[in-house]
């Protein structure tokens, strides 16, 4: 199973090496897409995560017991189809090609598995049709 996992943790756990634990204890393949610690030392991490469903469930339980908020998310961005005009402009900033548009149908195509949650497409969409589940770091 391959999915995305998003977690937020309180300041008290900012120093816990969760990534290390996830790899060592549960033998999961992890790719960190986004890591952030804000001014209050609240942290968040977004992973691409791969492994047997059972290990993933166990890992989630382990993290929750530690006091983290954990969510498996199928997609980091959502596109409001009622707002989207299929203009295609968002595809111009999606370097990973998770967003594509092409002949013959010229409809926007989004591949959530490829999306790395960089959020570049969000401000580019002229119709404000894209929203992100993972907030940007507040600077």
């Amino acid at each position: 199973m391959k999915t995305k996992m998003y977690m937020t943790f309180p300041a008290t756990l900012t120093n816990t090496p969760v990534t290390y634990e996830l790899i060592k204890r549960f033998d999961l393949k992890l790719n960190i897409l986004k890591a952030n610690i804000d001014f209050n030392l609240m942290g968040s991490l977004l992973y691409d995560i791969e492994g047997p469903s059972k290990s993933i469930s166990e890992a989630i339980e382990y993290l929750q017991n530690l006091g983290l908020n954990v969510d498996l998310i199928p997609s980091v961005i959502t596109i409001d189809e009622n707002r989207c005009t299929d203009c295609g402009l968002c595809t111009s900033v999606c370097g990973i090609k998770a967003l594509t548009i092409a002949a013959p149908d010229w409809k926007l195509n989004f591949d959530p598995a490829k999306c790395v949650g960089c959020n570049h497409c969000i401000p580019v969409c002229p119709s404000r049709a894209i929203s992100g589940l993972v907030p940007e770091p507040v600077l």
Partner: protein
Amino acid sequence: MSDKREKRTFDEINEKIRNGTVVVCTAEEILEMIDRDGEEAVFEAVDVVTTATFGPMCSSGAFLNFGHSDPPTRLEKLTLNKVEAYGGLAAVDTYIGATAESEDQGYEYGGAHVICDLIDGKEVVLEATSKGTDCYPGKKVKAAVKLEDLNEAYLFNPRNAYQNYAAATNGSGKAVYTYMGTLLPNYGNVTYATSGALSPLLNDPELRTIGMGTRILVGGAVGYVSWNGTQCNTAPTRNANGTPIGTGATLAVIGDLKQMDTKYISPAVFKAYGTSLNVGIGIPIPLLDREMLRFCAVRNEDIETNLIDYSVPHLSRPTVRKVNYAELQSGQIEINGKMVKTSPTTSMRKAREIADILKEKIKSGSFELQAPVKLFTQNQGVKKMANAEVLE
């Protein structure tokens, strides 16, 4: 052969629309038909070609009339949902421009949003002040109005439907934010406008059938071409096919807000640039003679434009290369030996939808063609601002 058709007139076409025998196809469909049946047979058979586009058109706005308050108040300074509208007309007339930005939300909510909120039947707050006169004693007025409350509300766009448009890229070391989208550094991407072979003025490159009075679809409603557009360039550089390279002619269009649908007109927001309005426009082109068929047979590979480096802060920006729409629509083009991704800013999906709607309207007899009451002056270029000194 003597029974071969050489010409057809607007009147003949309208007669066929009325008796249900008119043959209509879109500017994309006609290309397949020509491939299949040849130009001769297509000219015999087809009366009208429908064209369309849907994209951001900044030079857009609407005239509104609110009716009078009691006591009457002249709207000298006014806002609609905190977006400034023009107060220099008669007492309760105004013009709201699509790119005006709101006092509280900036370009995230602008004139385009006000116009589309009205079309959607939402309540919009009018706030106005006046110095007060004998005939208009009111000095301050506030009203919550809906489209149905207004006497007149019509879109009047001074410049729409650009014939062709330069494609955009960025040769500098940092991102550039434009109405062509975010352009990534070091030729990181390319964006382009127009619906190519489906685009209205590319199918009538010399404006032989489109002129003042032409009946069109605008924002999903029946509207009209009211004048040539501003900065209308009818003396562009043309390729062998007669197709303008880069920008060309433009149209001023008019249409009733009360008949529009936000599926075909919607606000657009460009990061670090501002508000604009996506306008959907559909224009029928009658195949009056074989020349018109030849024009409507234009293909994406025959339509060329200049790829411009938008990072250069001058009116005349360097052309990186010439490129055709088949290349642009392929998804990537070569710049200096490197393949670069291309993305549209015009919605082909919506443009097609509009061309299809127009086709069905004509076929069903609910949309007759209007011959232009005046054709636009040809061979006229565009002037720069005279005696200008940019002070800051």
